[in-house]
């Protein structure tokens, strides 16, 4: 009963913040609403027995990714769309389409039998790390994915640095290269 009350409070916060993302004018307000929504979702993770994922959600999503978003919004100061309208005529066709999609998927979900399994494991740090770094030959092999993920993040960082720096052919870059 208490879990249901906590869930309803967190769900209302998450949904309200998501609606604020849809309706806010300035991207910075949208980003702050998104942080609120993510923190409420982290609370739901803790509530249904995945505290490790909740902490990762706060650290990586609400911390790192949203820090990047707000930083880029503040660097590109012309980001406010006060001149252009928020929605155009196409948006009025998207709204019923998305509601129809959600209604159909929701209908299929409500029809399906779902129940919590009492033997499902709680996702504590010890359990998650033991599963993730199980290097036994008969194990699930998640550690290989973990290594590949490190490679992916490194390549994404290199790609971001290469794309966001000044173009190679620009005058400033050529001047600095001549000096060296």
């Amino acid at each position, binding site marked *: 009963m208490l879990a249901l009350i906590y869930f309803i409070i967190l769900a209302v916060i998450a949904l309200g913040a998501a609606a604020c*993302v849809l309706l806010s004018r300035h991207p910075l307000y*949208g980003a702050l609403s998104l942080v609120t929504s993510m923190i409420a979702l982290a609370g739901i993770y803790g509530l249904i027995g995945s505290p490790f994922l909740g902490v990762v959600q706060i650290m*990586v999503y609400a911390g790192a990714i949203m820090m990047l978003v707000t930083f880029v919004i503040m660097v590109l100061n012309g980001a406010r769309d006060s001149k252009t309208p*928020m929605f155009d005529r196409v948006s009025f066709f998207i709204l019923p389409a998305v509601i129809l999609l959600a209604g159909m998927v929701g209908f299929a979900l409500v029809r399906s039998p*779902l*129940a919590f399994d009492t033997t499902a*494991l709680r996702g504590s740090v010890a359990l998650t790390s033991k599963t993730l770094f199980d290097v036994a030959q008969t194990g699930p092999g998640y550690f290989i*994915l973990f290594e590949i993920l490190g490679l992916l993040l490194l390549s994404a960082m290199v790609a971001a640095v290469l794309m966001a720096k000044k173009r190679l052919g620009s005058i400033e870059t050529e001047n600095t290269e001549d000096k060296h």
Partner: protein
Amino acid sequence: MELQPIFIQLLALAIFAIGLLVAISRRNLFFVLMGIELALNAVNLSFVGFAKTLPDAMSVAGQVVPLFTIAIAAAEACVGFAMVILIFRNRESIDADTYSDMRG
């Protein structure tokens, strides 16, 4: 009345629908990327909620796979915002409708 798994799925569906709506209907490029992040969050929540309905040995996947999803979302945000900076430097505009060079 106790907390049912279907409530978690319906919440994830609602957040996913809002994220999709933000990503498609908003014109500001930042809101498009934030809508994608919101939809990815909803998918994570759905994954964890479904994993709690599985028995002992299978439910461990619900703790590990969302971790990979979060890391891939971080990589996606990193590259995506670098592209936003690049496009903004070329066009001096953040409105997605001005990037229509490739229309047929």
